[in-house]
């Protein structure tokens, strides 16, 4: 049985999410209403994710060196300046389909979430397969291989971030056109 404290906390969270949703609907009115704009945003998200892989590849080839370190800082900067706002916009555009807890979504949103996770899972599988193939081809020294530690860390980091954020990008790509508010419908009809 759910304790009273837990129930209270859950109610508080539900109310907070309802308030945030209402504010979000107000703020997002008229934004990303076309499929093209949403897909551009999702494409930008995918580009930011792929930057992480470029960073890992650069580290593999150049680390330890100044060039690898500079690339690393540039990518980190892009992640902070572009990646975080893009992720925020994607969460808003998808109405938190991949960010909220399951019980906070209705059945249509759950279906959309499931579809996004399914596609993203396939994408992550392809990425992992590609990593295995590329690393096996690139590293043929056997026991004498000297893979830079930074590259290994960055590959794992890129894999983790891809695993976590690809569903959000996919959900942004797949999200349907938002419907105009009823007031807009009435205004449009008259």
């Amino acid at each position, binding site marked *: 049985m759910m304790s009273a404290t837990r129930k209270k906390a859950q109610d508080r969270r539900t109310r907070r999410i309802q308030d945030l949703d209402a504010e979000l609907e107000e703020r997002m009115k008229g934004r990303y209403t076309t499929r093209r704009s949403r897909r551009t945003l999702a494409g930008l998200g995918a580009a930011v994710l792929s930057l992480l892989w470029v960073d890992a590849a650069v580290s593999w080839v150049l680390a330890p060196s100044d060039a690898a370190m500079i690339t690393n800082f540039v990518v980190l900067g892009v992640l902070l300046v572009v990646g975080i706002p893009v992720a925020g916009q994607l969460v808003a555009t998808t109405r938190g389909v991949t960010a909220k807890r399951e019980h906070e979504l209705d*059945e*249509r949103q759950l279906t959309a979430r499931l579809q996004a996770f399914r596609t993203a899972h396939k994408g992550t599988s392809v990425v992992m397969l590609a990593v295995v193939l590329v690393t096996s081809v690139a590293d043929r020294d056997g026991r004498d291989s000297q893979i830079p530690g930074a590259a290994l860390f960055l590959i794992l980091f890129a894999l983790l971030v891809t695993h976590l954020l690809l569903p959000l990008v996919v959900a942004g790509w797949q999200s*349907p056109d938002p419907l105009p508010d*009823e007031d807009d419908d009435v205004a449009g009809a008259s």
Partner: protein
Amino acid sequence: MTPGKDDKEQVHNRIPMLRAERGISRRDLAAALGVHYQTIGYLERGEYSPSLHLALRIAEHFEVPVEVVFSLTPFPRIGAPS
């Protein structure tokens, strides 16, 4: 004849008419059913087919049998010869 994917999944509904008749907004209906208001919009436009559970709850909300709200064939237009 095997129905195409679109035919198979198309569920027609009278939610907009029932809402208009009873003066209920999308947001009110959504709140009563515990779904996002856009879900009601997608349902009305036929872009989303509800689960049996949601279909029954919608019918229950309007206090009509489920076949009054949902149909696999298009509903006749009001005033059209039967």
